[in-house]
């Protein structure tokens, strides 16, 4: 029998609040679904608010649901570096996606222009896959696949990048699936960790 404490497992459990509460899933699902719903209407500046809104949902959920139930930690310098790298990566990914869309709009009849939505889906899926790896949350890999299928499938259904309705429906379904899964994870989390009554 091995005595050695499984420090990797202890570390995983210590940081699991970053994904165990389903708030990341809810934020991603909400942003994708809301984006799809907005595409059905005339795309407007409201789209730019979706990112901060998703972050707001995540923050408020942590503040009022997660922290009162499982407490809070200050990450170790090693984990802090990991989280900082994650934030930088997500920022770069967002900038790359934006640049990709702008370039595909400028270059007519190119491969990127014809498949810009599928490429956007691939970039988003890659981002969620990296998030899954960094947060050690395997269900996020499934979301990455859902996102890619929703975007690529939507592009095929739409036939053209200007036919937003078919594409939007596919994105709404993808986002809705992720959002529903996140809500189920959150409900399980709330049941598993009731709010403790006392604090020292």
């Amino acid at each position, binding site marked *: 029998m091995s*005595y050695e404490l499984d420090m990797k497992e202890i570390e995983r*459990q210590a940081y699991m609040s970053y994904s165990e509460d389903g708030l990341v899933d809810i934020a991603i699902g909400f942003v994708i679904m809301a984006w799809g719903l907005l595409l059905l209407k005339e795309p407007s500046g409201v789209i730019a608010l979706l990112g901060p809104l998703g972050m707001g949902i995540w923050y408020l959920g942590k503040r009022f649901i997660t922290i009162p139930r*499982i407490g809070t930690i200050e990450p*170790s310098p090693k984990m802090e570096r990991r989280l900082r790298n994650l934030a930088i990566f997500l920022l770069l990914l967002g900038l790359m996606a934006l640049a990709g869309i702008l370039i595909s709009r400028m270059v007519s009849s190119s491969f990127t222009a014809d498949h810009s939505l599928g490429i956007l889906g691939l970039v988003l899926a890659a981002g969620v896959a990296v998030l899954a790896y960094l947060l050690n949350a395997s269900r996020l890999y499934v979301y990455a696949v859902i996102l890619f299928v929703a975007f690529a499938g939507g592009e095929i259904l739409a036939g053209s990048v200007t036919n937003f309705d078919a594409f939007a429906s596919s994105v709404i379904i993808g986002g809705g699936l992720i959002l529903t899964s996140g809500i189920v994870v959150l409900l399980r989390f709330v049941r598993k960790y009731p709010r403790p009554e006392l604090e020292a």
Partner: protein
Amino acid sequence: MATDENQEAANPPPLDRVVHEPARLKILAYLSVVESADFVFLLSRTGLTYGNLSSHMSKLEEAGYIEVEKEIKDKRPHTMLSLTDQGRTAFDAYRQNMLDLLGED
């Protein structure tokens, strides 16, 4: 050389009683992978009761292995715990001693 090993086997290094207690070992293990953690976090992760955790927290603080900081957050008392250098050394030494005792690498 062989005599040294025999002597070590006959007189193993003493285990730190403060760390050896399973609940305290768990608390130290969690604190060793974070910078600091609050009382609720340790309650949820160790599965100890409020009273038990308070009592172990006091023993670890008395031994100088953890630092306890009490503050008021959102008009409610909030307790943050962190491992001291002495606590980290004791925890690492305990793990090493156990591995040596059981002959594991």
